[in-house]
């Protein structure tokens, strides 16, 4: 981003567009020349650097472009004051003495410098140069990190001017083919208000409109800074479009439109999501705003509880026809999903509208946590679609965990019933895992395990607690293992036969035990203690 007065933009009727720099020979040459000045400037004064840059300006180049490029390059610089003494202390000493002596003539001046320099043990010249060594022109360029190449500079410049234009945006409408999590995390953090619609004519993607609370009352570019900072995240998607309303105060408060997309910007703009904005540095400067502490606190406490449920913040959007909902949290376990939406202020209409959207999404299990003091009326279950929980300052863990457990149990029960009542589970192939079956049947692994407790399929042996291996395959393996002594060899053979991972369980089922000679895997031997069992389980006597 650049200072607004370095932005060059062209307007035509109601459209506005920054003057992008083309990645052509002339511009590359200018970029190289400018960067060259910085590179040559290492070890020299900033004043010199600025003079040389001014020369480039005066050579007939567009001074705004030169300054824009310089601004970007200057951010890659480290300047330091170089002096024998601490300039602040040196000044104190000198100015105090000059004041005391009421010095004003050149002779009086020299006398002061001589006196103080003697006291400090340096030469008068060294003292004098220290006095101003930390003012801007006197700083020395210590370090300069060049860009990857002149074309990179130009691309960064184009991104920077786009962002600078967006500083003055009143609102923006965009679509992006991905990177939703980062985009919506930033939208929330910047305190913007969004509304989402399922995307355009192709029906693909989502269209998001952004502005802020104040936009309702007046044309304000207050949110422009946040919108500009969101740009790199939007551009990180493979394809994206942007439509912004720009307020040009200098031209009498007229509102212009700015439109562009990933195709148009291909090759002339850089889309590094973090690097372009200078990341966290700029965030700290502008002041990052709306950390939803309620949600943060909740996430921390939930995770430290250890329920076996995973927690995802701002998961993939839920699509409901042309409506999109991005819930605050997703709880996941073994394929079971429960969503949580934390609502600060709400009216029944607002809540119902949200839930109506969900109604059209099949199989979505939603919990809504609503701030109690803002409750307009207590509603236990809105159309039976969601559980509504009330909270005062913090979202309470207990009701949610209870609910998750309940859901888990009921899901499992339902699924087990379904399995038992449904068609018998037929196993195909030599090696079948429980996860595969669970996936096929669309149930949770936990449910399947329960349902299969007494499951004794024909011709198969249960190996460990997640595999079914055919009798035939087991016999085949048994044969191959004849005479094999080392564990590692046995495991290889078993894997080669098509049973991955659970080799040791197979051995168990076949009646082998392992004998450890020391701790090296290599030396472990196997020996058959008993005949392979019918059912694959080890009799209790051992």
């Amino acid at each position: 981003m650049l200072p607004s007065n370095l932005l060059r933009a062209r307007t035509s009727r109601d459209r506005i567009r920054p003057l992008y720099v083309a990645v052509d020979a002339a511009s590359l040459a200018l970029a190289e020349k400018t960067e060259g000045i910085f590179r040559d400037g290492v070890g020299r004064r900033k004043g010199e650097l600025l003079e040389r840059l001014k020369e480039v300006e005066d050579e007939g180049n567009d001074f705004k472009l030169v300054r824009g490029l310089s601004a970007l390059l200057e951010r890659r610089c480290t300047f330091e004051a170089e002096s024998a003494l601490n300039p602040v202390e040196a000044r104190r000493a000198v100015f105090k003495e000059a004041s005391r002596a009421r010095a004003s003539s050149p002779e009086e001046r020299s006398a002061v410098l001589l006196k103080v320099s003697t006291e400090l043990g340096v030469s008068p010249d060294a003292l004098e140069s220290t006095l101003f060594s930390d003012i801007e022109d006197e700083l020395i360029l210590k370090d300069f990190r060049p860009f990857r190449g002149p074309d990179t500079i130009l691309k960064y410049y184009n991104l920077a001017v786009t962002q600078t234009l967006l500083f003055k945006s009143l609102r923006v409408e965009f679509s992006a083919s991905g990177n939703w999590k980062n985009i919506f995390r930033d939208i929330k953090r910047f305190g913007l208000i969004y509304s989402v619609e399922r995307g355009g004519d192709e029906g693909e993607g989502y269209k998001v409109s952004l502005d802020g609370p104040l936009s309702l009352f007046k044309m304000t570019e207050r949110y422009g800074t946040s919108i500009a900072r969101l740009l790199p995240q939007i551009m990180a998607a493979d394809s994206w479009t942007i439509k912004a309303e720009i307020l040009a105060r200098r031209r009498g408060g007229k509102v212009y439109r700015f439109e562009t997309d990933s195709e148009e910007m291909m090759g002339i703009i850089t889309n590094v999501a973090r690097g372009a904005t200078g990341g966290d540095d700029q965030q700290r400067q502008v002041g990052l705003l709306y950390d939803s502490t309620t949600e943060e606190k909740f996430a921390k406490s939930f995770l430290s509880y250890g329920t076996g449920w995973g927690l995802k913040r701002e998961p993939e959007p839920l699509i409901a026809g042309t409506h999109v909902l991005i819930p605050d949290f997703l709880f996941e376990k073994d394929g079971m999903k429960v969503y949580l939406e934390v609502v600060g202020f709400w009216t029944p209409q607002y809540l119902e509208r949200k839930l109506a959207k969900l109604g059209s999404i099949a199989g979505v299990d939603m919990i809504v946590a609503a701030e109690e003091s803002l409750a307009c009326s207590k509603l236990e279950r809105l159309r039976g679609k969601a559980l509504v929980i009330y909270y005062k300052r913090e979202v309470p863990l207990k009701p949610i965990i209870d609910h998750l457990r309940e859901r888990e149990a009921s899901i499992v029960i339902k699924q087990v019933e379904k399995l038992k009542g449904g068609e018998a589970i037929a196993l195909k192939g030599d090696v079948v895992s429980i996860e595969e079956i669970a996936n096929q049947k669309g149930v949770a692994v936990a449910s399947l395990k329960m349902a299969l407790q007494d499951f004794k399929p024909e011709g198969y042996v249960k190996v460990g607690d997640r595999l079914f291996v055919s009798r035939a395959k087991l016999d085949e393996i048994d044969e191959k293992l004849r005479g094999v002594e080392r564990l590692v060899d046995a495991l290889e053979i078993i894997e080669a036969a098509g049973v991955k991972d659970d080799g040791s369980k197979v051995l168990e089922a076949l009646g082998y035990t392992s004998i450890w000679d020391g701790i090296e895997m290599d030396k472990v031997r196997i020996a058959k203690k008993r005949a392979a069992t019918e059912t694959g389980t080890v009799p209790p006597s051992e």
Partner: protein
Amino acid sequence: MQPTYLSYDRGTILIKSDAKVPYSAWDDRVKAFRAQGLYYREIVEFLKKSELSAVKDAVEDLPPHPASMKCRTVALRGYQKRALGAWDKAGRRGVVVLPTGAGKTVIAMKAIELVNRPAVIIVPTLDLLEQWRKRVQEELGIDVGVYGGGESTVKAVTICTYDSAYIRAGELGNKFSLLVFDEVHHLPGESFRQIAEMFTAPYRMGLTATYEREDMLHLELPRLIGGVVYRLKPEDLAGKYLADFRLERVNIDLTEKEKEEYQRNYNAFTNYLEQNRIWLNSPVAFQRFIMMSSRNPEARKALLARNRALSIAFNSEAKVDRLEEILRANPDDRILIFTQHNDLVFRISRRFLLPFITHATSKEERYDLLKCFREGSYRAIVTSKVLDEGIDVPEASIGVIMSGTGSSREFVQRLGRLLRKSEGKGQARLIELVSNETSETRTSSRRKSGRKDGSEKKDTAGKGDGGDGYDEDGEEVAAE
């Protein structure tokens, strides 16, 4: 009937009500009514009066505050009492206009005592932030919160810069009952006015020595914090409470060399205008010329020539020589030297080994410097604009203006800096060094008569372009 629910959302008030409350609009995005924070008081009063339904008000989120906040040592002078009384009578909303040095800080602290609820004081600079912090802490005996310059703590009394208040309005807006604006003439700017619009504080006080703005935006202030409730001019207080001052204008000839260079550059500028039939007879015309020069290299050359000419006039060596005479002639006075540009600041500092303050000076060094000046170990300071407003620099009896703008407000502020009542102080002097026969001469007379017809470029009161058509450095213009 359903109760009405109010809550605060990022600078606005969300309203759930069966009846429509004034100042609100329907926000379809969230399916509720919304109003700007500014109207909180009106909305609550309306609901009370209408007695339509119970109100559940969750708007304010005030920090913990002591049962009573009392001033320890301060006693109000007559006119200060009247000012506070007038403000109270006006519903505790409005602006108090008093000359610099008349003790507006004291009035604000008494207002805090009167309202006795969490208050935030908005100030334009970090220097003023420090100054207020110190005084309030000493006087009220409480820990003060600060927002700005890297700090961010909210306490019962919090001091905040205009910039921070603008950026953080959404978070801070509902945390205070009393809003005090120091140098409130900054408030009506396009961006800063949002501070008043996004805060819910029902009680508001504005303080300034210069109410009117050249761009007429002061007309927004009544809506934002109330009308002028009390007003005094420097003449009303001079002698009794404020030191008298004397304005001396000194015309100085340029050196021969300077005259010649000045003429050359100025002619280059006027020739271009003539050749291209451009007349710069109004501020608007000048603005247009500046915009033109950013696209037209020839025009830009002409503008740069003009700026060089002006620079010569403003910064002429002859003036610095005269400054030497002044320093020599007044060894026992404490002297403040004002200049427009850093270049001249350093030239003067180098030549006379005088402490300097620019926008780049660190907070610590600035603080230390002012302290030394106050204590007497520094007898003069040279500064570029930065000490303009309200900073306590007591005991300064001579001010020298090396170059200045044509804005009347700035003139008054600078003058005000010297008007500090202190024991045994004679008349203060403000010396203006003007180059003969240059456009600067015109600028100076405009400054003196306090005309409001606008200088060549708007004075944006604070950082930003130089107000005299200089903007060379591409400095980012301030929020206004």
